């Protein structure tokens, strides 16, 4: 059997609570360029550029589109697409403008609220209830960013061929984690 638990980075379905769980065929809803730009901004608010590039530079919006199209079930795709609309409506309700028009403080405030809401929902939901759309967005953002080239090589450290193993390697607070 393939050894389990050999590393800290989990690829795929264990981390992604949603999607990739059943064999309903996907109908490949199309993400427009506008949708991708919207997702880029949402993702950038979750993981902004700091001393390292943010989600937008890592093209997380486009990646999310690919994942939702190819890996999500039809039902989850629907929740995701509806969720984008819900997010936009929530933004308009709170700030009288859409997410793309909102400034970065407003975006952050909105998503902090949605994150809380999603966490509460996930905690209390029944097993077969759908995943909260913001949980989907956040998971795909984290996964998309930290497995991207900028995320792996600039936000994290990446060595393709380590060549040796040291199980007691010095670490100082602030040193970046290894990418897979």
């Amino acid at each position, binding site marked *: 059997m393939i050894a389990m638990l050999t590393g800290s980075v989990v690829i795929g379905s264990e981390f992604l609570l949603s999607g990739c769980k059943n064999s309903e065929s996907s109908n490949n809803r199309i993400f427009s360029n506008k949708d991708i730009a919207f997702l880029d901004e949402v993702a950038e608010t979750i993981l902004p550029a700091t001393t390292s590039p943010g989600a937008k530079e890592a093209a997380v919006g486009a990646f999310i589109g690919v994942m939702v199209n190819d890996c999500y079930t039809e039902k989850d795709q629907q929740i995701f697409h509806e969720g984008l609309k819900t997010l936009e409506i929530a933004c308009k309700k709170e700030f009288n403008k859409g997410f793309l028009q909102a400034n970065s403080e407003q975006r952050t405030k909105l998503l902090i609220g949605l994150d809380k809401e999603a966490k509460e929902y996930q905690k209390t939901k029944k097993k077969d209830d759908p995943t909260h759309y913001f949980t989907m967005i956040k998971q795909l953002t984290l*996964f998309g960013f930290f497995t991207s080239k900028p995320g792996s090589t600039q936000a994290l450290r990446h060595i393709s061929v380590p060549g040796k193993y040291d199980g007691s390697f010095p670490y100082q607070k602030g040193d970046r984690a290894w990418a897979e």
Partner: protein
Amino acid sequence: MADNKFDAIVIGSGISGGWAAKELTQKGLKVLMLERGRNIEHIKDYVNASKELWEFPHRGNKTQKLIDQYSPVKRDKPSNEITNDFWVKDKECPYNEIKPFSWWRGYQVGGRSLTWGRHCYRWNKWDFEANLKESIAIDWPLRYDDLAPWYAYVERFIGIQGSREGLEVLPDGEYLPAIEMNVAEKYIAAGIKSHYQGTRHMFIGRTANITQPRPEQGRVNCQYRNRCERGCPFGAYFSTQSATLPAALATGNLTLRPFSIVRRILYDKDRQRASGVEILDAESNKTYQYTSKIIFVNASAFNSAWILMNSATDIWPGGLGSSSGELGCNVMDHHSLVGASGIIEGFEDKYEYGRRPTGIYVPRFRNIYNDRRDYIRGFGYQGAASRQGWSRKISELSIGAGFKEDLTEPGNWAIGLTGFGEMLPYHENRITLNKDKKDEWGLPILNIDVEMKENEKKMRTDMMEDAKEMLEAAGLKNVSVFDRGYQPGMGIHEMGTARMGRDPRKSVLNGNNQVWDAKNVFVTDGACMTSASCVNPSLSYMALTARAADFAVKELKKGNL
């Protein structure tokens, strides 16, 4: 020699078939190795070996399309976007689950030796005696001492990194320098040793990854990428391609024929021997026959039994080797996906450099010496400690710059222990031919009817609770148990369908892996196993194959075959 005549035919090119081909060709036999799938050339065909994660459109995830191709085994995880070329798509090669069974197959040259977990453990002396002592199924026709020299022979060739521990429960072999445990694992190992006063142990998992170069085999030592399952461009882990196939080819005695589905073994009634095999070319659908003096069946446990079931049916309706009534019965696997995990406090100033191709191993401690439980046999653990990565849960932070900066640093050290338990041989856990459903070549598919019973279920409680107790004894906090829901087959250690024994009325094979009813047919893959132990089985398959090949050639020379 005519094109269709050989001294020996080896059916299958996986971990045991590769060994059969190497041993027989090196002893001077002209060998035909048949593989039902496509060829995979060493290094050249490991197309994903050097890609980075971001080069995969879904970063390794399964797409809905892939899940659909792999139904019904979509329920667990070995195949993904990166490795799926090495795993059979169930839609193309269906089987019938009477009870849920995940049948993971590798139809290509190299078989599952390309994707295996690489853990190599010798059986102990009790493993070979347990059936007899506990009146379970039948006795093994051999003992540890019979196999020990063959374990050593195989270990020397394949290259296993590991430490010698001097334990009766997990005999030491011949090892290359061990990869080290990390600082957190050493701490836990010391805690376990001290708490259990030397009766429980944790050390580095013994794996077939070389830690010293082997220029004579064209193999470079492990580079700590931990991407073994994609095929290794350094040849650092043992596979058919990295080791046994080049050795067999170097003799000039090997013919390898991919796309060759063996339909049946040809049986000569008068001589009571097999005379060769009939194959279907998977590409052209044409039928060919090849003859040989001996045949090694190494098609993987279920397919080896399938071939026997389809052979000599004019004499035995159940097929060659069915006279005992045991062909296809006694399916075993290792039940798993159960254990515990916890957080290790401290060691914040330490990290790992490099990605090991192994983890730790905890050998069996239940039902040995004076320990007695309400079940028989036992289990071992595999696992690893590492600092948590970006996928850890951080509840206090939600989104934004602080959240991101936090995730770019490693988290706490954490460890998981996953148990691998012995499954007993039950006659009624069996595979049979399905006469109604055929595959795309018109061949009958298999029914699989296998389940865990009381002994396994009781053992699983210990597998969880013991892991928790040991981690807590070592001082860990927040230890929690898990049972991810094992179903038979998920261990990918299926075995037992043509067991060895001392009595032709109760076993398919004798003590030299010969089919009782056709002494020039040898079955030396997982099918031959009379019990399962709890350790990973491949090393034993290899040792049994080398032993049987040695015997076969000696018998051939004596004119006994």
